[in-house]
């Protein structure tokens, strides 16, 4: 068996994050502009409150009150429209982009010879990494928007009073940076918590999957004790994460307090001296408090960017993988030449199956189909599953294959018969039922050369008998004299139906003969097949 490791991709492809941003450029720009608008409006809300108090409440002028209220209405209208379109453009682009990435990834990994990564890892990449890579869009437009809001707040403060502005901006920046210093602690603790929680969930699911085993052994209390240990660890981690977050909550209240106390003190004194109006005082206090928001948002968007980068890295690595080299051809002397129309049994070690499939030579380039031993079924009806190897335009009836595979009885027992839809990849069926469906699918494909690997390990002896007769009749009866069938098996029932049996040996030449000849002449064959 040749081992092939995925070759790291060539660097021809541009980094995925940049590619996403280039593809979505119009929406990235549009959403960034909308967020600038929204954040600026948010920054202006306290200013509007101050203006309204200054202009209307202090003066007592009705037209000014009307104007103030109209101004507030306008401000909130712009604010809400900007937010709506920021969300629609940015999030919409994320949704479209993650879909496109997922589709591209699916095509890539389903190509023969592609990635040998485990399917669990690929599933994570196709699900959460696709979403997070696309979050690069939010990263850029969010950073632009938050920076603009920061600029607006600073502009407001500086325009009220230069000294005041300078003091407040300095205070806000120092305090927010100090606050952000807590976030690594929090992400670490939250990470621990999520991990322990995921562990508890995984254990619970695992125990439920093995419920019958636990009941059979009466091991419920034992299992509960195991779960309690994990649950307790999750509890401790949860409390630790909760303490880190409460520390942050308290610290952000404290940070807000420092900015507020400095702003009310300084602005209050300025107002008392008549350097600024009451409205300007309210606006300054409000704007100083608001500064913390874009500063925190910048920290948040930087985190989004970091995880988008990591995800895009993983995703990009799979997309850039080159196909693995093909399996090495076996040397010419270990090849097995098949004759048209014969039914061959092959007895091999369980680990040798790949070698067997590679050694087989079909007569005159006839189409060969190797049905994997593992009975993988897919979503869809039973009929759709059976037609997997048929062209879409081919409406032929799978009845003969179903009968030959001994699957007739249980398919008829399904409420919708052949049209019954399979749930959960057919895992709700028993192992024997899945195996028979996979066999029926292979038989219905009707290739010139069909290779079956231990096709009857999960069925009872009587059914196995019927299947062995069914295969013989369907593929080697009068209707199809030219079909070639190979069974790799050690089942005496199947081997007895074959024309000849080949015993593959690790370090010796293969032995060839009929089942009955080999039973009589080879003791090792006899013990191996009959126990």
């Amino acid at each position: 068996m040749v081992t092939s490791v995925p070759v790291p991709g060539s660097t021809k492809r541009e980094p995925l994050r940049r590619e996403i941003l280039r593809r979505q450029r119009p929406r990235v720009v549009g959403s960034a502009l909308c967020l600038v608008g929204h954040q600026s409006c948010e920054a202006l809300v306290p200013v509007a409150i101050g203006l309204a108090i200054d202009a209307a409440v202090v003066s007592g002028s009705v037209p000014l009150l009307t104007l103030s209220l109209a101004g507030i209405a306008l401000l909130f209208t712009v604010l809400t429209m900007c937010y709506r379109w920021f969300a629609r453009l940015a999030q919409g682009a994320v949704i479209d982009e993650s879909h496109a990435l997922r589709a591209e990834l699916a095509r890539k990994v389903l190509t023969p010879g592609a990635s040998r990564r485990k399917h669990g890892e690929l599933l994570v990449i196709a699900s959460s990494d696709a979403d997070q890579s696309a979050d690069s869009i939010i990263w850029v437009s969010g950073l632009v928007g938050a920076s603009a809001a920061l600029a607006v707040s600073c502009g407001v403060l500086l325009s009220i009073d230069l000294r005041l502005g300078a003091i407040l901006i300095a205070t806000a920046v120092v305090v927010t940076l100090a606050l952000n210093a807590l976030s690594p602690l929090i992400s670490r603790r939250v990470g621990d918590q999520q991990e322990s929680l995921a562990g508890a969930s995984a254990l619970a699911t695992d125990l439920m999957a093995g419920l019958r085993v636990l009941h059979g052994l009466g091991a419920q209390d034992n299992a509960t004790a195991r779960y309690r240990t994990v649950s307790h660890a999750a509890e401790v981690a949860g409390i630790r994460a909760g303490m880190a977050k409460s520390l942050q909550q308290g610290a952000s209240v404290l940070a807000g307090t420092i900015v507020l106390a400095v702003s009310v003190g300084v602005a209050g004194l300025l107002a008392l001296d008549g350097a600024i109006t009451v409205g300007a005082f309210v606006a300054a206090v409000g704007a100083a408090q608001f500064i913390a928001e874009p500063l925190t948002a910048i920290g948040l968007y930087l985190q989004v960017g970091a995880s988008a980068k990591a995800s895009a890295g993983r995703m990009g690595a799979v997309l850039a993988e080159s196909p693995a080299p093909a399996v090495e051809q076996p040397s010419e002397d270990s090849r097995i030449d098949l004759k048209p129309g014969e039914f061959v049994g092959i007895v091999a070690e369980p680990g040798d199956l790949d070698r067997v499939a590679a050694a087989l030579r079909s007569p005159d380039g006839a189409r060969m189909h190797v049905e994997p031993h593992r009975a993988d079924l897919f979503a869809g009806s039973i009929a759709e599953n059976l037609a997997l190897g048929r062209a879409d335009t081919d409406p032929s009836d799978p009845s003969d294959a179903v009968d030959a595979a001994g699957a007739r009885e249980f398919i008829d027992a399904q409420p919708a018969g052949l049209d019954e839809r399979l749930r959960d990849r057919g895992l709700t069926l028993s192992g024997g039922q899945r195996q028979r469906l996979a066999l029926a699918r292979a038989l219905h494909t009707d290739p010139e050369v069909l290779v079956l690997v231990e096709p009857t390990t999960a069925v009872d002896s009587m059914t196995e008998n019927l299947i062995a007769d069914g295969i013989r009749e369907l593929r080697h009866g009068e209707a199809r004299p030219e079909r070639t069938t190979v069974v790799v098996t050690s089942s005496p029932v199947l081997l007895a139906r074959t024309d000849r049996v080949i015993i593959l040996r690790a370090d010796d030449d293969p032995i060839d003969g009929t089942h009955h000849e080999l039973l009589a002449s080879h003791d090792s064959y006899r013990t191996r097949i009959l126990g």
Partner: protein
Amino acid sequence: MTATEPQHVRLPLATAGEVRQALRHYVRSHRVLTATTIVLAAAAALSGLVAPWAIGLMVDAVLSGGERSEIITLAAWVAGAGALSAVLTAVSAALVARVGQRVLARMREDVVSTALRLPPGQLEEAGRGDLASRVGDDVGVVSEVIASLLAPWVGAALTVVLTIAGLGALNPWLALAGLASIPVYVLSLRWYLPRAAPRYSAERAAFGDRAEALVSSLDGRQTVHAYGAEDAHVATITAASDRARKLSRDVLWFATGWGKWMNIAEAVGLGAIIATGFVLVSTEAATVGAVTAAALYFHRLFNPLGLIIFSFDEMQSAAASLQRMIGVIEAGRSLEAVPPVAEKPSGTIEGRRITHRYGDHEVLHEVSIEVAPGEQIALVGPSGAGKSTLATILAGLTDPDEGAVSVGGSPIERYARTHPRPVVLVSQEVHVFAGPLVDDVRLGRADATDEDVSKALTLVGADGWVAALPEGIHTPVGELGHALTAEQVAHVALARAALADPAVLLLDEATAESGSRGASRLESAAAAVLAGRTGLVIAHRLQQAQHADRVLVMADGAITETGTHEELLEADGVYAQMWSAYDSGR
């Protein structure tokens, strides 16, 4: 359980009342801590009200030309109250997390322990999936909400209530003006929630379908390649992903369209306060400072109100999950507490006139069976004859609709909570538990030492491959662990049974999946575990029946033939036919 009760109950959903009662029950054990938490959180929110009030006073001081010392004193009040609020916020949030996590942990442990004790025979297949999603997904949803939302929610809710109270203390008219926003919030939320729920659940279902399409194609890659069906599968995945994409866009458009109502509510409240303040100041019923304070109070509500409104969905889905979790606990209330039995019964096992149905379909009809201590029985017959059902009933895992099972002369129900069980069933369903191999095997007997486990593995002939594992018996196996072959998995199942050392051992097609060569090796492993106890083997390969003391042939829910292998061959019935079909390969 009487015959009139339904056999396959669906898990119940707890009512809102039951959820409240259960929560009270769990919180009660942390009564003092909970009360302290609430008092501290309220105090934190109260001290947060000092700042806007002080700013209002400052506006009045500026307008009336007050002293510099007045400004400095008020700024000091803002600083002091804020610092106090910061400390109280931190402490109370930490306490909320502590109470929440403790209650949650006890609750999820009760859910899992009840789920494990529910009689398996009463759960239909769909019920098992439901149970798994309740202990997995639902517990996950509730845990996530408690970890990320509980403390902010408690803080936000108290801030909203106390800020409105503070507004009221400042001036009742200004409070009333601010409350003008509440109907907007309530009405829009009432419009939104029933319309949002189906959209979100359609989106979640589409995500589920997408994951299913991905899993089935990735997991079955080998088959996809064998059939050259790559394009069809890429198309299926793309279609599923595209459906999810469209639904996500629909949800996005819907939610962002509705989001304007939050801003409208804010604008309405703020405008009302300024207009009311205008009137109050003109009539000298309030100072400019009071109006300023009111407007700032209201501005402070934007964030907590937004938090509450925007997390309403999550809180609702957590509440639904909570109903499903408590439902499991409620389902377990009717379980009788059977005390464990210390002494081991003799190996006699007897089933009397057992009849059992699945829905309308009778799978067993008045089956009687008696097995003497040490006797080895083989049960054969075609699929669907009722062999597996008979085995789970004899093992005491399913209560038969009619009839009774006794072991060592006493009813099997007596041993419901006894570990290790006197009757062990190694079922058709194989499962390797995630974690070290030694812990998996130890499920057979909780107090077994590492040596006991090694001995059991040696007995079934697994010592060779176990020694070759990277960390021996401590190697992680199961999901994410070292992958075991079908034969190795069967070894583990037999080793667990050996460790449990039961008086009666039932084997249900335990050797079915591993290929003929492995099968004969596993048959000797099974024989080693069966030696010295009463055994009943559902024989897959007729070879197993050949050496049994007695063979029982089942068909259509009844035992049709009984005798030794030779006797049955002589009788020339169904068994003889099966044997000749089987033997034709020889």
